[in-house]
């Protein structure tokens, strides 16, 4: 099975975006203290059939972005601004009832931990048929048959028996498959996968990623893949958004990003991870400090305190995400980008 990246890229060029996130801001307000800006002006598009990655480390705002898109943030203590246009309709302006209609039918989500996102006291089958009856208007019998074929499609052996099982009777990989089955039940046009394989072992991760790849290729569902694992990104995403401190710092196609990472943070990340296929020996090149050593964006580049290329020029207030003039396939928020491979220093 070959990767459908080429066909997807072709499909992407044709249409208008399925989802368009415009200047999304999410602030968590705290009594008596300055609010925490978890997402700080994030914009990106997802075309039909496209797999878009949101990559970054803990606290960079990638998960909060997806929760805001789905309208799943608690109403209290959270301020959301900007636009989330799904086929032109602003999801942030919808009522919770309208949103509930859309969720599960047009947009579905797969979370990291399948044990906490499945109901432990309801059989798996009921959780699948529930979606089908609610959103696709099937009767009990139809829904049961459809659920069985869904479980079979995601690679759960003996689906008829498994429908009666409770979540704790399934293994981790199997639970994640069940969750994917539920997410795909109504043939959503957008699937948001938030670290879908992080809790799984590598051999199971490989199975689940392969499954997601196949399903996206077969059904033409668009996908937002949220992960911290650059290896996962390299295998599945068409376009990648690298996030740092609540903002997108670099955006490029998958091949382009890995061939020539331009933001110092992206470059630093790629240098810091040991690679299985690289020649062994020598020290790793870590990024100094930790994700809490950030500069507020209004004072300069948030990554500057940890960056090896930073100087006084980096203290530009609210640095923009602009077209990279050296590698125009990139969008970049960096004053001193990593030179492209082969360039003279």
């Amino acid at each position, binding site marked *: *099975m*070959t*990767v459908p*990246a080429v066909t997807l890229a072709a499909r992407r060029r044709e249409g208008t975006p399925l989802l368009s996130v415009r200047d999304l801001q999410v602030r968590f307000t705290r009594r008596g203290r300055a609010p925490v800006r978890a997402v700080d002006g994030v914009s990106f598009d997802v075309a039909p059939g496209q797999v878009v990655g949101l990559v970054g*480390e*803990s606290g960079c705002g990638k998960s909060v972005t997806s929760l805001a898109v789905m309208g799943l943030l608690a109403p209290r203590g959270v301020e959301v601004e900007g636009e989330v246009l799904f086929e032109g309709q602003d999801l942030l302006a919808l009522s919770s009832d309208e949103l509930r209609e859309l969720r599960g039918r047009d947009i579905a989500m797969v979370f990291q931990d399948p044990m906490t996102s499945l109901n432990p006291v309801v059989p798996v089958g009921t959780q699948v048929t529930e979606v089908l009856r609610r959103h696709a208007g099937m009767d009990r019998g139809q829904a049961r048959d459809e659920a069985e074929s869904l479980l079979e*499609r*995601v*690679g759960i*052996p003996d689906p008829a028996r498994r429908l009666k099982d409770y979540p704790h009777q399934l*293994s*981790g*990989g*199997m639970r994640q498959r069940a969750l994917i089955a539920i997410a795909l039940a109504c043939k959503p046009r957008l699937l948001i996968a938030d670290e879908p394989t992080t809790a799984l*072992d*590598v*051999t*199971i*991760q*490989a*199975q*689940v*990623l*392969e*499954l997601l790849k*196949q399903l996206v290729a077969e059904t033409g569902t668009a996908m937002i893949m949220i992960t*911290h*694992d*650059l*290896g*996962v*990104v*390299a*295998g599945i995403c068409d376009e990648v958004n690298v996030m740092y401190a609540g903002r997108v710092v670099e955006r490029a196609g*998958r*091949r382009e990003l*890995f*061939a020539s990472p331009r933001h110092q943070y992206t470059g*630093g*990340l*790629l240098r*810091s*991870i*040991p*690679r*299985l*296929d690289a020649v*062994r020996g020598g*020290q*790793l*090149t*870590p*990024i*100094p400090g*930790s*994700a*809490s050593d950030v500069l507020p964006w209004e004072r300069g580049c948030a990554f500057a305190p*940890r960056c090896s290329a930073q100087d006084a020029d980096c203290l530009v207030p609210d640095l923009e995400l602009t077209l990279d003039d050296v590698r125009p396939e990139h969008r970049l928020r960096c004053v001193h980008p990593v030179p492209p491979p082969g360039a003279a220093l």
Partner: protein
Amino acid sequence: MTGGGDVLLEVRDLEVHFPIRSGVLLQRTVGHVRAVDGISLDVRRGTTLGLVGESGCGKSTLGRAVLRLVEPTGGSVRFDGVDLTTLSPEELRRSRRRMQMVFQDPMASLDPRQDVESLLVEPMRAHRLDGGPTAWRARVRELLGLVGLPSTAAAKYPHEFSGGQRQRIGIARAIALEPDLVIADEPVSALDVSVQAQVVNLLEELQERLGLTYVVIAHDLAVVRHISDEIGVMYLGALVEQSPSEQLYLQPLHPYTISLISAIPVPDPEVEDRRERILLAGDLPSPAAPPPGCRFHTRCPFRQPTRCDDEVPALRELAPGHRVACHWAEDVRDGRIVAAESAHDPTAAGTV
């Protein structure tokens, strides 16, 4: 395997079987979870042995059993010539000074109500280190310097540090008594990617400066390969392959290792698109009832009829220092047996 005086740790036929009890009052033992089931390996002084495997393979239990933090139910562990399994509790306590452990989650393994100084002094007090409180406090400064923290850190509490700094404190505590052996159980997996490399480098620096011997337990083969001289691959409580670190990646011999390596995502789209991925069918069987014959035969894409199902493969040395427990390792290596399309699971098995 190399023998002789340079072997610091010698594990022979180590077994840890946890009883499964049933019933409310009588608590009859109805079976055993064979977490570690007959493992033998050597660790040479000043080197690093990496243990990899997926959750439930017994790698953490093996690490703990070596230090007798869980009691082995069989076999022996010789540390610098002394059999730890026969020591009295007091003798064991004294010998623990020379073997320490670094845990995965430094937030959970450091007492949140003690400041760093008291956290680091505690092991010195427990082992009545020479010099008394004044010398201990001086040693705290020295330790903080060794792990790259400022001496002002001594007065702070664990919650005031980032994950990477907390792991540095955990490491400082482990090396406080100048041990010979440090067992690190998933030392970086709770940390952010950009910070993992800092801790990996620190572990390597300390090994060089202090002549430490490491056993590093992790699920991330890329990290383990980077840090280890030798790697042991575990599956369902058994060692299925052991080899010098470079060799394991260049020529994995056990079908499980081959599949494991092929499943690890590499941050390079060119490699990812070209790669032939061997997907394993199904899930890990229960360690309470491991499959007969070769434990891996239920998922093995190279499985051959009858022998794999009936006969337990011995760990054989195929190349110097490279041991593998597979009946067909030579045939798999030379391409005489190829991975089969698995019939168990149509969407997620076979070669891709």
